[in-house]
């Protein structure tokens, strides 16, 4: 494997991990978010604005994108407080599509033709961001927050009646998700040296979401597997050809069915043991 392709794989994996994290964290709190594209668009806009500074402005762009994306996620959480299920999925889809349309309409990303940016060496910053978010994920998954999110996902009414700070649980989950998504957008834009509104649309978001769902959210291994799946998607697409969508959708559906059967088997086993 050449140096160029190793660099490519490293950056794509880091971007994928951050993007998958922006799906997995709200999913752990019981909400299917399709706002990943919108968060990535915030990062893309920051990457366009910040091209000066040390290392071509890459670290500054990632930090600014993380802060702005986190703020965007928090605002979205406050606006969509106690909104769940399909309504939340649709609101977040609206955010993604509105951000894509904003990029196109404003001309900030060069309209339909896209915008060239100075290329920069993003590998160390990509690895650094990915590792930093892995540490954040480990900390979150081991903290009492994870338990509270689990309860919110499985028994939302119970979580409310127990007096859990539901609003803040939602704000934290979407703020971290927004931060990760925006950092992914900034990294991707600077790595490609090209800003393109369509890279942050609904279709790209659905691919990342499916990979995240297929990999599971309960263990830290899930986001890691999901990021590998996103990196492998283009390769799988080349192998599967026109059947790429069938393979991806089929894998996700098979994983969901397998998880359902395992859950039922576990329940039956527990039932027979206690009976």
């Amino acid at each position, binding site marked *: 494997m050449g140096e160029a392709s190793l660099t490519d794989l490293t950056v794509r994996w880091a971007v994928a991990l951050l993007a998958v994290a922006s799906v997995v964290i709200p999913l752990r709190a019981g909400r299917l978010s399709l706002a990943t594209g919108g968060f990535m668009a915030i990062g893309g806009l920051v990457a366009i604005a910040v091209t000066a500074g040390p290392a071509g402005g890459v670290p500054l762009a990632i930090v600014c994108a993380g802060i702005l994306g986190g703020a965007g996620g928090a605002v979205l959480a406050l606006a*969509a407080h106690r909104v769940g299920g399909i309504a939340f999925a649709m609101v977040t889809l609206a955010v993604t599509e*509105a951000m894509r349309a904003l990029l196109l309409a404003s001309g900030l990303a060069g309209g339909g033709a896209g915008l060239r940016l100075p290329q920069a060496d993003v590998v160390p910053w990509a690895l650094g961001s990915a590792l930093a978010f892995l540490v954040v994920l480990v900390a979150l998954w081991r903290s009492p927050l994870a338990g509270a999110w689990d309860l919110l996902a499985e028994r939302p009414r119970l979580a409310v009646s127990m007096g859990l700070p539901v609003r803040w649980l939602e704000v934290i989950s979407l703020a971290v998700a927004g931060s990760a998504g925006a950092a992914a957008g900034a990294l991707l834009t600077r790595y490609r040296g090209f800003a393109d509104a369509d890279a942050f649309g609904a279709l790209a978001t659905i691919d990342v979401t499916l990979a995240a*769902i297929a990999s599971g959210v309960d263990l830290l291994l899930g986001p890691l597997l999901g990021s590998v799946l996103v990196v492998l998607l283009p390769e799988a697409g080349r192998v599967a050809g026109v059947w790429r969508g069938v393979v991806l959708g089929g894998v996700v559906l098979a994983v969901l069915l397998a998880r359902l059967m395992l859950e039922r088997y576990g329940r039956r086993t527990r039932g027979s043991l206690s009976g």
Partner: protein
Amino acid sequence: MVEQVLLSGLATGAILGLAGLAFAIGVLGSRVYNLATPELLAAGVAAAFLFPAAPWWLVAVLGSLAGGVAGLAVGWGAIRPFLAQSPVWHLASTLAAGTMLLGVITAVAGSEPRRVAAWWDGDVAIGGAVLAGGQVVGLGASLLLAVLVVLVLGWTGLGRIIRAGGDRLDATGLLGLPGWLLFSLAMAFAGMVAAAGGLAGAQSLGTVSPGILAILGLKGLAVATAAGFRPVPVVLAGLGIGVLEAGLAFWLGPAARDLGSWTVLGIAILLRTRQEGGILGRG
């Protein structure tokens, strides 16, 4: 000029309304949010792509049947096994089923945008506006179909049966109505409506691809959610969003169209959900 904007907006809005209706049928019939509905629109147009020389009525029948079969497949493969699970499971499984369905459609019928032959060649002048034959067929068929679906859901035995299944699928068995049959009816009916909407959309738009119709269908889902899944408001909201889009595209440029409509839809869903709670809200 205003008439032209209004009519082209109504043409797009009617397709959004039909996509929203197909989504609403699934919700009314099974209490499940079928995110594969946009791809069911594309199932209809696959027939037009595969049989370009076939007479229009045959394409309409084949397209609707393809939608019905695809709706059943999604229902039994991706919804029925997860009926007892939480809504997030339904969203995930139908999202995956939609990706599979679009994969099958593009593999069989191609993914490139193609011109679909108009089912009628004449032009119609309404006020200062002139509509091409395909646009007339698309608008007329969409509106007619939307009215028919609203009537079927609200005033016929089939509609009552579908809605009964959505209210208490498990209890319908006690009344002698097999749950699996009600579920299958709702899924097939939703698939046929979506596919017919896709065909009407192809007539209105002229040049389409399965991907373009799927994106249009996604907006239809947002329309249905904003309108609370009630058939008449869904159709009216679809028409309203279509007119808004046409106006924005005409006066502010094409890029403003999606920005305006998605912003309005997002805010409308938030307001409705906060107001209602119920099946949409979490608490």
